[in-house]
């Protein structure tokens, strides 16, 4: 792999920039891999990268039915934060946020991490109290957040309507180290770095079946059938946001997951007016401004199962209405694009990382609406889990068995988040 640097740009300029190599190889599938990862999104590629980097496993393939980073990795609103209430979530999301900080240097790929700060508004007494609790929990977990009053909110974000008629702003939970990053670059950066260590990334390679051999308990994985032929493996990692249920059915088990559309939209580009990320959870909308000047807007997910990747019209209306109320300045903005992704929701709104009923198959999914921010931490924990065959300290609480054992990590009521 040729390193990207200022020197390289100058050097390549002498040969008219014809010398740049492809960022990752497109090899033919081998007949066997130690680990096969299904899904070349952020989480799958991060897992491949940390398997190679932290655990020395390089006979690894990442299979992707379409092109890499074409699912939810390229469809989110790219917000990074870790202000979660429960200790298990705080640990993995904070690791993730901290890994983002120097990821550009580690991957030698500019992911444009911008720690501009994330502000979660408190617009009811109840929300204010819940955020106060979260801020204390964060302090105990070593996460840098603070509860700020309306005056500070107005200073951090002058365009907010502080004294709105319906939901005046009573305060906010401020995480100065949160922010955004370039979402596609995360997938590209991990893909390039993993490929350089010997990982095979096989695009246009859809898994059509999972081969198992019978054992006394649940069976054991043998390999996968794909549109590019059969491939055998020792371990299989299913990391397919939005399709976890489909892959689980191929492997012969069911998950406590339902897949819903979640949509986002961007406005026409305007001059800089919002230099932080603002989430207004009571009215249900969140917004940041991209480097291009577009307002990037997200809202709530649909209420019923669908794999449409577009979502309902009335959710767009609700989201835009909420944001016009919070930011009256945007009321005349035109929206340029609207799109949707399929999010895998679990009952407690926390992800599933760990073993499955089938020996040798591991799963990482159910990140719901919060998958992007967790990519590095999720890949880190998943790689350790796959390499050792047992969940590590980070992944342990997120096992599939937590449902039957009643160890829910209840972020659906705890997270200060638009779920």
């Amino acid at each position, binding site marked *: 792999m040729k390193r990207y640097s200022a020197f390289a740009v100058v050097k390549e300029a002498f040969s008219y920039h014809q010398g740049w190599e492809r960022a990752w190889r497109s090899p033919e599938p081998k007949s066997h891999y130690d680990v096969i990862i299904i899904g070349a999104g952020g989480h799958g590629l991060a897992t491949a990268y940390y398997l190679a980097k932290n655990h020395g496993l390089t006979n690894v393939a990442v299979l992707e039915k379409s092109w890499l980073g074409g699912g939810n990795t390229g469809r989110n609103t790219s917000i990074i934060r870790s202000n979660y209430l429960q200790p298990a979530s705080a640990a993995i999301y904070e690791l993730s946020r901290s890994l983002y900080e120097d990821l550009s240097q580690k991957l030698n790929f500019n992911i444009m991490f911008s720690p501009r700060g994330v502000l979660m508004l408190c617009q009811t007494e109840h929300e204010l109290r819940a955020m106060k609790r979260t801020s204390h929990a964060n302090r105990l977990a070593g996460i840098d957040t603070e509860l700020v009053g309306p005056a500070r909110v107005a200073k951090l974000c002058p365009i907010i309507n502080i004294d709105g008629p319906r939901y005046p702003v009573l305060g906010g939970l401020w995480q100065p180290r949160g922010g955004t990053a370039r979402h596609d670059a995360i997938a590209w950066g991990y893909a390039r770095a993993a490929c350089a260590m010997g990982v095979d990334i096989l695009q246009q390679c859809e898994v059509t079946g999972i081969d198992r051999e019978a054992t006394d308990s649940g069976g054991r994985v043998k390999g996968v059938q794909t549109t590019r032929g059969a491939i055998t493996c020792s371990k299989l990692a299913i990391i397919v946001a939005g*399709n976890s*249920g*489909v892959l689980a*059915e191929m492997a012969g088990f*069911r*998950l*406590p*997951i*339902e*897949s819903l559309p979640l949509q986002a939209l961007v406005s026409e580009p305007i001059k800089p007016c919002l230099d932080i990320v603002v989430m207004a959870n009571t009215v249900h909308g969140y917004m940041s401004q991209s480097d291009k000047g577009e307002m990037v807007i997200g809202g709530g997910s649909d*209420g*019923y*199962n*669908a*794999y*449409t990747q577009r979502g*309902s*019209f*009335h959710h767009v209306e609700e989201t835009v209405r909420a944001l016009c109320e919070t930011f009256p300045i945007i009321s005349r903005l035109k929206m340029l694009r609207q799109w949707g992704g399929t999010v895998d929701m679990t*009952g407690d709104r926390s992800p599933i990382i760990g073993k499955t009923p089938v020996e040798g198959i591991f799963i990482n999914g159910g990140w719901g609406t919060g998958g992007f921010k967790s990519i590095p931490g999720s890949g880190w924990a998943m790689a350790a889990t796959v390499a050792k065959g047992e969940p590590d300290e980070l992944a342990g609480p997120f096992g599939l068995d937590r*449902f*039957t054992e009643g160890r829910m990590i209840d972020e659906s009521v705890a997270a200060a988040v638009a779920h």
Partner: protein
Amino acid sequence: MLILTCPNCGAECAETELAPGGEAHLKRFGPGSSDEDFAGYLFERKNPRGVHFERWRHAFGCGKWFHAARCTVTLEVFGTYSAQTTEPPRHIIDAIKAKRPDWEA
């Protein structure tokens, strides 16, 4: 916009008039059942990519529950039917088979 016909009152409703109620025909397991059955009933869901049977409530209308057969990929609706059924009725299965010959119940 998803439009379903309420089989109870006959109204054609847009999704804003309805409340989704999740997977239909779950078999309830209670006291005396095995742990696996109980966990399956409580947590595990089909979540199919394709034909799906769901519960809906005509929340801003007659207020009654009903069932719908719908494709989760295209949002095509195959029909709606009474909530007082433990499995999809014959005419719904036929309507699905007519449009999706490969589909297996």
